[in-house]
């Protein structure tokens, strides 16, 4: 069982690495946002699996915090990207 779950962690981690390639490649900000979202979700899954594998039940709490904070970070990310598009050509000082 432990071997299976560890292998699953490894596979999801590999997906996460591929998601990083997508951040790296872009080409648009929307793609970067999506990749960040995917990395957050994959990180949560890895944490949940890792908590079960290593017998650290508190890893679920880390995943809980990560779920809330990653939500917040992606909303901030998208919101900043949105206002950038909306205020294109406007005063950069108001750009937030």
């Amino acid at each position: 069982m432990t071997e299976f779950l560890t292998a699953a962690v490894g596979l999801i981690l590999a997906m996460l690495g591929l998601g990083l390639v997508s951040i790296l490649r872009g080409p648009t900000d929307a793609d970067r946002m999506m990749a960040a979202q995917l990395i957050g979700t994959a990180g949560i899954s890895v944490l949940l699996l890792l908590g079960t594998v290593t017998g650290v039940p508190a890893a679920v709490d880390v995943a809980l915090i990560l779920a809330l904070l990653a939500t917040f970070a992606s909303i901030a990310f998208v919101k900043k990207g949105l206002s950038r598009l909306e205020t294109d050509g406007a005063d950069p000082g108001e750009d937030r």
Partner: protein
Amino acid sequence: MSVARDIITVAGVSAGVFFFFAGTVGLLRFPDTLTRLHALSKADNLGLGFVVLGLLPQTGGLRDGLKLISIWMFVLLAGATVSQLIARTARQSGSGK
């Protein structure tokens, strides 16, 4: 009993890993933003969902199970909102065509 639990875990986590794989490949290979968004939502909702489902039989008690499910709920909510905002961004900037 424990064998049945392990079977559920293996099946759930395997399905979850499959959807993560599908979502990542879609994110890398699909031609435009909106189709990539479609692929992403599969990894987000179903990938994590199946992993949570698979891990439920392995949890110690009701409280841990509830925590797992609420994590999934948070991610579902966030995923739905962020996807909609990203789609709007993409349409406004014209890259969604």
